[in-house]
């Protein structure tokens, strides 16, 4: 395993802080794979995905009620405890009811390194940038609307950083992101074989680290690593081919991949944000770059989004696309307690997986702790054993 990926996956804060120290550049944290992080990259900022700790809360529990998303609360707690004090800014999109409110919580509860610049109640150099991401990602007016939203975001960034972000900067970002996407897709394709070209856990480490380091750097390292794997004829341990879907899958609960492997399974494809959703959608380099970024961001099929289709089924298409060519034998859904978007769509997806692809489904209710993941071992074992027959 290429140790740089492991280093990022296991100790993300240290790895990013080290990079910041070495390069002297800025780092912004963001929530969610639909965030237009390319704009940050264009401004020479490293965008890093915000994740939580999975530890008992120390401060956030006084502000965010216990029923709410354990992932979001844990992220906020990490922020309040100063674990993200190296961030120069935070970007929060209107992903879901909970993340949307993180804008308020992070702004009021997490100390910021820079001072606000207030003009009549408006902070023109905000620390927390809010992006009014549409709920409906298709529609005749959604692209012009969202491009306008991104122009506002870009303007806030330019004021905060005291620099302009030109179309050339954006175009360079688009190109770098596409390069990384093509290597990620390549890695993804390698898991179609039986046994897969690399294990689910390795693929997760590579994906997770892509959200923590500059895309051009990641693309370079990944290309070299995949070349190496291919020339070695490397294969992952055999196992029942598993499709993994669900809520936040970061360093807190990624042990689920190992548990699946130890139980005789292997994750070969997924429907996760720290997974296929983070690289699936290419940027159209023929369009003006801000529009290309807007379209990529809108195109991300996160469960919280809806579409204009008369009787919406878009998520099923995405699931089909990422499941069919991989000879999936079983699907595991790991869903956090408050995640209504996924909980609501689950029965339908489960039924369709069974009737259209004849794939059995295991539902695991996650609590965003590593102990919680361990407790699922017996169920995962039972599920895989049931498929083995």
């Amino acid at each position, binding site marked *: 395993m290429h140790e740089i990926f492991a280093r990022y996956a296991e100790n993300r804060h240290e790895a990013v802080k080290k990079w910041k120290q070495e390069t002297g550049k800025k780092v912004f944290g963001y929530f969610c794979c639909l965030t237009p992080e390319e704009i940050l990259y264009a401004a020479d900022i490293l965008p890093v995905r915000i994740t939580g700790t999975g530890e008992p809360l120390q401060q956030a529990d006084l502000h965010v009620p216990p029923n709410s998303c354990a992932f979001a609360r844990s992220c906020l707690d990490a922020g309040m405890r100063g674990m993200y004090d190296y961030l120069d800014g935070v970007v929060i999109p209107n992903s879901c009811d909970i993340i949307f409110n993180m804008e308020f919580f992070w702004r009021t509860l997490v100390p910021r390194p820079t001072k606000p610049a207030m003009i009549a109640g408006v902070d023109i150099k905000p620390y927390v940038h809010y992006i009014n991401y549409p709920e409906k990602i298709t529609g005749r007016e959604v692209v012009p609307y969202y491009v306008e939203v991104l122009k506002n975001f870009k303007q806030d960034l330019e004021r905060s950083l005291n620099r302009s972000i030109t179309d050339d900067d954006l175009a360079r970002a688009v190109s770098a992101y596409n390069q990384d996407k093509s290597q990620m897709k390549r890695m993804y394709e390698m898991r179609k074989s039986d046994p897969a070209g690399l294990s689910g856990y390795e693929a997760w480490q590579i994906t997770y680290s892509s959200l923590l380091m500059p895309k051009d750097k990641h693309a370079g390292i990944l290309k070299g690593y995949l070349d190496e794997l291919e020339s070695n004829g490397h294969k992952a341990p*055999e*196992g029942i081919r598993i499709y993994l879907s669900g809520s936040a899958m970061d360093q807190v609960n990624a042990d689920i991949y190992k548990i699946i492997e*130890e139980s*005789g399974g292997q994750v070969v494809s997924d429907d996760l944000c720290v997974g296929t959703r983070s690289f699936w959608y290419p940027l159209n380099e023929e369009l003006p770059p801000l529009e290309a970024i807007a379209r990529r961001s809108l195109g991300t099929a996160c469960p919280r989004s809806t579409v204009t289709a008369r009787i919406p089924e878009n998520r099923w298409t995405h699931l089909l696309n990422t499941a069919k060519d991989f000879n999936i034998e079983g699907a595991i859904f790991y869903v956090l307690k408050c995640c209504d978007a996924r909980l609501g769509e689950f029965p339908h997806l489960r039924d369709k997986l069974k009737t259209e692809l004849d794939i*059995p489904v295991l539902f695991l209710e996650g609590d965003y702790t590593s102990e919680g993941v361990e407790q699922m071992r*017996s169920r995962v074992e039972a599920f895989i*054993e*049931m498929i*083995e*027959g």
Partner: protein
Amino acid sequence: MLYAGIDVGAQSVKAALFDGQKMVGSVCTVTEEAADEAARAVYADLLQGVGIQRQDVEKVWATGWGAADVSFADGKSSEQLCAARGARWLLPAARTVVDIGAEGCRVMKLTPEGTLEDFANNSKCASGTGSFIELGAVYLKVPVEEMGPLSLAAEGAAEVSSTCAVFAESVIISKIHEGETRARIAAGIHRAAATRIVELIGRMGFIEDIILIGGAAMNPGLAKALEEMAGVPLRVPENPRVVVALGAAIQASLKRSRRGKSAS
């Protein structure tokens, strides 16, 4: 050929011997020993009781919460699979198996051919499991094994509306203050537990025959409450506590060691 199955639960260890046709012996012991020691002791009891030696047994198969710790097992399988195997063997028309233990309740759904098709757990909280009834016994100051008979002696049942075990104490105390008899409260507790279990069975579809196994299946009050709330008959095999161990033994007779697992 003889096969042994050992079910290492949180509170007790069960073992069963299978000769390819039927169960020829079984042991069930409540123990607080560590899994491996407890398993050894119970296995020794089993062999002694049947009058055979270790070398007479072709394979030993472990299951249950402590299965991984059983050092002398040739392999292990999940409780879900073993419950399905055991119940189906004893009652060939089994399509749904309900295993109610102290820590949790699980429901297994079988295909018409008898293989495990799906399963669901309810270990989110104690209500709907043996623990809820145990708690009730504590607050009613009644030995736990008498809860069932007590509930059966009641005329009707007190309304135990909250199914959350955290509030069990306050609910029971308020019922006592209201003048409810212990019998009716016990009946109410059984109905509340049964409600949760029936909801779980519903997720698997209520396909008959529905088999009830596990420690709590020995509770006649619970069995009755379940049948009433489910509206379909439930079948309880002769020795419900050892069905999973039997299933492990049957599993041993069917399989080699599982792919990817190391057998000791």
